[in-house]
C-alpha cells in the first residue's frame, strides 16, 4: 500500500512516497509540509518508490507549491521513473517543478 515518509536533513525536507501517489495519501502528504510555510526549507519529493500517479497527485503537488508560496521549480522532484515522467510531461509539470 501507499506510504508517505518524511526525512529532514539540515535545511532539506524530503517527502518520499512509495506505492500509489493519489488522493488516498492526501492527508499524510499535506501533514508533511503544512507547518513549513514561509520557512527557508528546501523541499524535495522523492518518487523513487512511487509506482503510480494520477491527476489528484498533480493537484496535491500544486497545492503543496501554492501552500509553500514557492516559485516555479523551487520544489524538486527526484528519482522520477520514466513512466511517471511521461505523465508529468503530458501535464507540463516539467515546467512547474524541478526534476532531478
Amino acid at each position, binding site marked *: 500500500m501507499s506510504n508517505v515518509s518524511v526525512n529532514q536533513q539540515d535545511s532539506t525536507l524530503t517527502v518520499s512516497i512509495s506505492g500509489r501517489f493519489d*488522493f488516498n495519501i492526501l*492527508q499524510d502528504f499535506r501533514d508533511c509540509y503544512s507547518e513549513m510555510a514561509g520557512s527557508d526549507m528546501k523541499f524535495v519529493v522523492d518518487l523513487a518508490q512511487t509506482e503510480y*500517479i494520477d*491527476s489528484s497527485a498533480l493537484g496535491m503537488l500544486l*497545492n503543496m507549491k501554492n501552500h509553500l508560496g514557492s516559485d516555479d521549480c523551487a520544489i524538486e522532484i527526484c528519482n522520477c*521513473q520514466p513512466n511517471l515522467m511521461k505523465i508529468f*510531461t503530458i501535464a507540463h509539470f516539467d515546467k512547474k517543478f524541478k526534476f532531478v
Partner: protein
Amino acid sequence: MKVLVVDDQATNRAILTWLLEEDGHEICEAQDGQQAIDAYQEDDFDIVLMDVMMPIMDGLQATKKIKAIQADGNYVPIIFLTALDDDKALSQCLESGGDDFLSKPYNDAVLKAKIAAHMRIRELTQVITQKNQQLIEHNNRWQREQNIVAHIFNKALEHNLSECESLRSHIAPASTFNGDILLSAPSPAGGLYVFLGDFTGHGLGASIGTLPIAHSFDQLALRHLSVGEIAFEFNKMLSSMLPDYMFCCATILELNTLGDSVQVWMGGLPDAYLVAPDGSIRETICSQNMPLGVEHNEKFNKGFEVKQLNPGESVVFFTDGIIEAENPNGEFFEEERLLNCFAKGVKDPFSVILSQLEDFIQGAEQRDDISLVEVKSGPVVIKHNNQLSELKGYEGIYWQMNCDLGVEDIQRSNPVEEIMSVLGAQTLLRPNKDVIGLLLAELYSNALEHGLLDLSSDLKRSEDGFAEYYQLRQERIEALNDAQININCELLFEDETVLRIRLVDSGKGFEFENILDSDHEDSFGRGISLIRKVCKRVEYSNNGCTVEVDFPVSRAVVLD
C-alpha cells in the same frame, strides 16, 4: 624413390639403374623423349634423369612437355645428364625447364648428392603445395562464413531508423566488420533513443558484441527505460558475455518528443558536444562512467545527465576513431583539430569535421572504426518506422470488453487497476500502458465523482476544499446505493487502430462543458486536460453521463 631414366644408350641406362638400385630407388627406363612422356603420364615419378641427344624426340623437347604436364604444382625435378659441356648447351637445358644438369662422364657421388638435394626440394615443395591447398580451402571457408556473418550483421542492424531528421551519422568501419555500433529506436512517448558503442578492437572479434546489443535495444526502447537503465541492462549482458579484456565504450541518448531536452549516459567515449546554432560549443558533456561490460552490477551507476536543447542546437558525439585517425606521416587527427571544426560562424560542424578528416587522412589506411553522430533539436519525426508499422497494421484480433460495476464494486476498491491488469497484457497496448491506465483512471474519477457522487470541482479551488472534496468523496461512496458505472473498452480499426473507451454512469449528469473548458493552473481540472492531450476524440453526451474517447494505440503519444 621412383626414378625415370631417359637415355637412348642401353649401357648408360644399365649403369644408372645399377647405381641407383643400389641406393634402394625404383627405376623405370625410357629410350627417347616420347617414351619418357608416355611413361611420365602413366606413372608417378619423383625424379627424371634426362639425356639430351636422342632420336625421335630429344631431351630438351621432352622436358618442355613434361614440365607443361607438371603445371598442377607437383614438382618433379628433371636433371640433365649430357655429354655437351658448352655454355650454350647448358643454358638451353635450363631454358627448356630442366632443374639441374650434370656433364658426362659424371661422378657417382656427385650424381647421388644432386638426386638427394632435389629430393629434398621436392619434399619441401610437396609440403608447401599441401599447405597452400589447406590455405585455399581455409580461405574459401572463411569467405563463406564471412558472407553468412555479414548477412546476419546487416540484418541485425537493419532495423535502425533510416529516416529520422533528428539523427545524422557517418559510419566508416576499418574492415568488413564494424566494432562500432550505432542504433536508434523510437521511444514509446514519441522521442528518439540513440546508442553509439565502440567495442575494444575492431573487425569480427569486436563486432560480435554488437549483435546482442542490437537485438535487445528495440526491446529496451519499447519498455521506455531511462538511458541509465538501458546502460545497466547492457552492462549486465556484456559483463556476463565478454572476456575480461573486452568491453564497450558507449553513449546512450534519449531525445524527448519535442526535441528540447536530451538525457545522456556516457561510458568511456570521448566528450560529446552540445553545439549552439552558431556552430560553437555551448557545453561539453564528459563521460562519467566506466565502459559497458566492466563494472559489477551492484556498483553500476544508472545516473544520467539531462540537457536542455534550444532551437537550432544539436549534440555531436563520436568514437575515438576520429581523434586517432592517422595521416600517411603517422600523425593523429587529435582533439584540437576536431575542436577547431566548432567555431562561431561555422554553419555545419558535422560536415566540416568529415571534410577536414578526409583532407587530413589523405587516403592513409584506416586503423580503427570511425563513427560520427549528430542529434538535432526539434520535434522528433520518424518517417520510416511509422510507415512500416502502418503498412503492416495490427494483425491481431479486435475485441471488446465490458464491465458493469455495481455499488459493491465501486465501494470495494479501484476497479481501474483490475481492468488495466487485463488491458496491460495486450502486446499492442503495453507500450502505452501507463498512459492508458491514467486515461481510464481519470475517466473513472470523473464518472464517479461528478456523475454519481455529484461532487463539484469548485471545492478544489482552495487547499482546504481540496481535502474536503476527498473527504466528501469517501463519505458519499460509502452512502451509495443503486448506482452503476459501465466501462466498455473496444479495440477497433477506424483509419488506424484505436482503443475506444466508453463510460456510462447512472448519475443525473453534470455540466460537462465547464470541465471541458478547464485548462488552468488550478489544482483541479488537470484530469480532463490530460485526457484531451492523449486522445484524438473526447465526446461527452447524454447530459454528461456518457463519455467516449478514442486513443490511437499505434501512434506514440504525441505531446502538443
